């Protein structure tokens, strides 16, 4: 337990140390704030402009979450189908890999042609960005169900659906929850990408406007918000993972949750 606290203090200390070094280096080398603002300038900007930044933050959070939820639901469905059926796996996998390899920044203008700029492309970009890890993990989890368990179930005259429901899905849970941590950060990246290209609101849009006016501290304030939100969302989903699938992990990791 005490080593646990020490570790957490360590990571906080590392973050603080990074900011201190950054601040000192900027001061020592007289770095212009157009090139790299000092963390103190960024914090001041962050606090002064917080009321104006808040709607942008909420917009990004909103599109991220909606896209994430959609991506997870669709991801589970596709993952279950291709994880459970060998044929579906072989047939659909190349297509999925193809889709996931497309740079999402190239997809946004196309989405805008269909839906106009704003919330919809951001949600959809978040959705397609976070879809793939969920699909792969759910499919892997199902595909790696122990054959012995399946055999036992079959001997008990379980239907294919019974096996999926009682053995396959529970076995896939650790994979699924691990994928959520990756998916939420990717969803975040997706909606910010979309906002930088086409939107009227959101952290991505705000950063484009700020960089057009060379307000670099404000751009960095946007990056800070993104980083903090990313860490928070990641933490939430690791907590969920630890609570729900702690049984599948080694004891020390379980204790962390």
């Amino acid at each position, binding site marked *: 337990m005490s080593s646990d606290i020490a570790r957490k203090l360590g990571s906080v200390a590392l973050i603080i140390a990074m900011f201190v070094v950054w601040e000192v280096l900027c001061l020592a080398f007289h770095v212009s704030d*157009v090139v790299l603002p000092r963390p103190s300038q960024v914090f001041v900007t962050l606090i002064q402009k917080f009321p104006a*930044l808040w709607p942008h933050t909420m917009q990004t959070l909103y599109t991220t979450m909606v896209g994430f939820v959609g991506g997870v639901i669709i991801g589970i469905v596709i993952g279950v189908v291709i994880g459970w059926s060998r044929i579906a796996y072989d047939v659909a996998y190349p297509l999925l890999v193809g889709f996931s390899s497309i740079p999402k920044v190239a997809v946004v203008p196309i989405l805008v042609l269909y839906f*106009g700029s704003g919330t919809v492309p951001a949600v959809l970009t978040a959705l397609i960005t976070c879809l793939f890890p969920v699909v792969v993990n759910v499919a892997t989890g199902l595909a790696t169900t122990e054959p012995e368990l399946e055999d036992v179930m079959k001997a008990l005259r379980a239907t294919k659906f019974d096996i999926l429901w009682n053995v396959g899905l529970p076995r896939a849970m650790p994979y699924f929850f691990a994928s959520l941590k990756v998916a939420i950060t990717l969803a975040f990246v997706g909606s910010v990408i979309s906002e930088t290209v086409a939107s*009227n609101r959101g952290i991505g849009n*705000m950063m484009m*406007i700020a960089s057009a006016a*060379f307000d670099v501290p*404000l751009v960095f304030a946007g990056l800070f918000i993104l980083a903090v939100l990313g860490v928070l969302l990641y933490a939430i989903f690791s907590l969920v993972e630890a609570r729900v699938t702690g049984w599948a992990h080694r004891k020390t990791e379980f204790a962390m949750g």
Partner: protein
Amino acid sequence: MLTRLAALAAAVLLLLSPAAAQEKIKFTLDWKLQGLHAWFYWAAEKGYFKAEGLDVTIDQGEGSAATVTRILGGAYDAGFGDMNAIIQNAATRAETPVMVYMIYSKAPFALLTKATSPIKSIADIAGHKLGSPAGGAAIKLFPLLAKKNGLDPAKVEIINMAPNLQEQMLVRGDVDISALFSATSYMNLIALKLDPDKDYRWIYYADNGIDLYSNGVMVSAKLAKEKPEAVKGLVRAINKALKDCIANPDAAIEILAKQEPLLNKEIEKRRLIYTVKNLIATPEASELGVGDMQDARMSAAIATIAAAYDLPKSPAIADVFSRAYLPPKAERMLPATTN
């Protein structure tokens, strides 16, 4: 039961009718919010659109040429975008958007280099690195500009970058010269705390044989055909707002700031004034009134675009521009710019 249904239907119709009277128009800008977009928000904020029976939604854009594709795709009915992109599309497609109100009667395309650079004319660019965003209009027109000025475009190394990195890469020396939009870059250099007049050399396309029109208000072919009154109302509202903004730049920026509190008001106001002085209040605009254009200049511009992009045919002026929706000339005379 039936009467009750009928009553319900009547009630619903009553509820809907005031909304139906307002013509819904989705309008796209050419780029993220900037000072030079003030008049569109002014028209919305002051109720000019509403007075014309229009319900206009304004979205930010991703490039002045993208305005044309956004309208072609059907997601938008109207927008602020590039005349030359319409010409390109009109050569290969029917039903292209039509320019109905020309705002920048001078194209802002320019080459920018440091004042200390050995590049003094277009012919000097041979052997140097030229930076520009891929697909940007300034770089698309560059080969033609080069040929007109005795430079083999193959002798220039072209480096692509995102539009917002153009000035930085030039300042850092990663490229020797940049092909860009003068209005945008002029202000960006000021924001970078540099002097765009003293420390930099500008070579304008317009002074070197590429004389084009630029951004204005365009509408979809469908809207122009089916709702001419709505288009007239849209132009009237924007024209009125444009004049108001030129007369009151401070109030114009305040309206923009209400839209986006994080805007740098000082810079956006200077951007607005620079754009008005250099691209809008041109001698042509004071002669013809803002919104209109000269047929002879437009024909030459169409020929230039057709040559630059190897278009299969040169569209007729009537395919790309219409003055049928303009308010009378007396209403289109610009007030003097303050400060």
